[in-house]
């Protein structure tokens, strides 16, 4: 059954000549949710987003939105809107005209489109800057203009291509809060491409991890982080040790590993390095088979029994915290 605002990818493939950028991916995006497409550069996440937006043709497969096949429609007729990585604001137009651009293209007369643009300006809190040119705005303000310009088309799905990558770290955290709030207010789907797992965890209701042109794992943020299915996902999400044990390959969260005295733990290990990180201490150690295991120890606990590089220690974990990896 297809619901309204329901976006689905069916066997979507993108090839550039003989290279495959996206290989037969299948996914149904939750309606009215915030989804992050996460992966390293070149994994196909941007190509996927651009195919949904209509800026890249689909080689095979189809894209369905609200039950209709949009794979071959021009971008503006899809019910999607895109916010570009560097915002792509028109440098020769004022903020107001940038936002009203799509209405102008539709032939809406000046008065009406300025009223609509005014509403959008209010939504992103930029009314005071309506007559400025994009050059005269800060990065965060430019981003809000880009957001307003995309939203004025009343899209069912908003596509964001690495929207926070051009901002400084402080602003990035503030803007991601605003994005999330806006998504909740508008109740439409946001699909956000990023290579930062912290960004994805902070924002997403659902995370889709991509690697090498395929989806490695998709699911609610907490499930993806806590129960990675593959070695790639465990390593890319961070905060996990990937270890080979006699009965298979497992992922275990670094904060689920506890440090004990030598010979007292499940495994014995040698401390390689110790890093003080404020609230906790990160202890890197070697276990047999030349494998590295990191343990995160709360700061106070660590300093009651400190260890130096070269020390022999024991490591312990609950078997239920081990997640078997398929690949």
């Amino acid at each position: 059954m297809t619901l309204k605002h329901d976006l689905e990818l069916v066997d979507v493939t993108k090839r550039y000549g003989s290279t495959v950028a996206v290989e037969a991916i299948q996914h149904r995006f939750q309606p009215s949710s915030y989804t992050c497409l996460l992966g390293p550069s070149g994994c196909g996440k941007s190509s996927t987003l651009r195919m949904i937006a209509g800026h890249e043709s689909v080689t095979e497969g189809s894209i369905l939105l609200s039950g209709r096949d949009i794979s071959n429609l021009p971008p503006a007729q899809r019910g999607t809107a895109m916010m570009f990585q560097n915002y792509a604001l028109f440098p020769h137009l004022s903020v107001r005209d940038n936002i009203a651009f799509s209405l102008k293209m539709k032939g809406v007369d000046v008065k009406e489109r300025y009223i609509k643009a005014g509403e959008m300006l209010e939504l992103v809190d930029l009314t005071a800057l309506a007559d400025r040119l994009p050059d005269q705005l800060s990065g965060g303000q430019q981003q809000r203009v880009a957001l307003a310009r995309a939203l004025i088309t009343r899209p069912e799905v908003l596509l964001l291509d690495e929207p926070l990558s051009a901002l400084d770290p402080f602003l990035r955290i503030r803007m991601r809060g605003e994005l999330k709030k806006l998504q909740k207010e508008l109740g439409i789907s946001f699909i956000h491409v990023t290579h930062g797992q912290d960004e994805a965890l902070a924002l997403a209701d659902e995370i889709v991890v991509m690697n090498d042109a395929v989806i490695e794992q998709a699911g609610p943020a907490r499930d993806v982080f806590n129960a990675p299915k593959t070695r790639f996902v465990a390593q890319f999400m961070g905060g996990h040790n990937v270890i080979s044990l006699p009965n298979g390959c497992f992922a275990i969260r670094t904060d689920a590993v506890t440090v004990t005295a030598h010979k007292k733990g499940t495994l014995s290990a040698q401390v390689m390095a110790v890093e003080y990180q404020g609230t906790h201490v990160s202890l890197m150690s070697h276990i047999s088979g030349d494998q590295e295991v990191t343990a995160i120890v709360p700061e106070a606990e660590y300093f009651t029994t400190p260890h130096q590089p070269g020390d022999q220690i024991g490591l312990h974990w609950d078997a239920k915290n081990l997640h078997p990896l398929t690949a």
Partner: protein
Amino acid sequence: MKKLLENRNVTGWLMVSPLAAVLLVFLVMPIALIVIVSFWRATEFSIIPAFEWDNYAFLFGSPVTYTVFFNTFKYAFITWAFTLIIGFTVAYYLAFHIRSLTWQVALFLLCTIPFWTSNIIRMISWIPFLGRNGIANSTMMSWGVIDEPVEWLLFSDFAVILAFVHLYTLFMVVPIFNTMMRIDKSLIEAARDAGANGAQILWNVIIPLTKPGIMIGTIFVVTLVMGDFITVRFMSGSQSANVGRLISNDIALLQYPSASATAIVLLATVLITIGILLRFVDIRKEL
């Protein structure tokens, strides 16, 4: 001496002096000289240093002057219109339809190859083509398009403008291409995302962003055409005149004061024209 060199003002002046000297000797002095000579008195057999307005009075009193200035503007305007249309189209094709940078550079260089020969040779090569018994006429006759040779192909305003367009289109292509290459391609995607069709993107995004390049090309073409005399002489068969020819005729008759006065008026006209053009578009970003 040492103390003098330590003075920041002195070193500053010394550093700008080479450029200032070059400009003074090759720009300011010649123009000053022309201005001075334009006030001298000339008779059939002598030139007398003086300060009188006779040359200007004669220039502005003669109806020929107005016809010739009108002609100069006519050539400049028509040539500008054609070079703009052709130049914009070529630049647009190179910048937006050719995808790979290698091909863009290759085709761009291809455009410049004709400029390896001299202007005059390229101009004269039109003569056997356009002449009464030239290639154009004989081909059209053999096709049966015309019964007898067309007279206006050569030694006419048509020939003059054709040669101008041929000579100067590249001066329009280069700055427009340069500006277009700086347009962020994602702006076009953004326009498409907002529902703009090809014509709307051209009109609402590409043309406004290309304006500085168009303006620089316009300045090149207008100044080149307004200052030209050789093209008009060759291609019109000495049947049309522009201001450049007026000056060259005066010089041939050793009427230097009169030539100077005409040159000064032309210079002022061109500067005013450019001044007006620059009111419309800010080209500082491009420089």
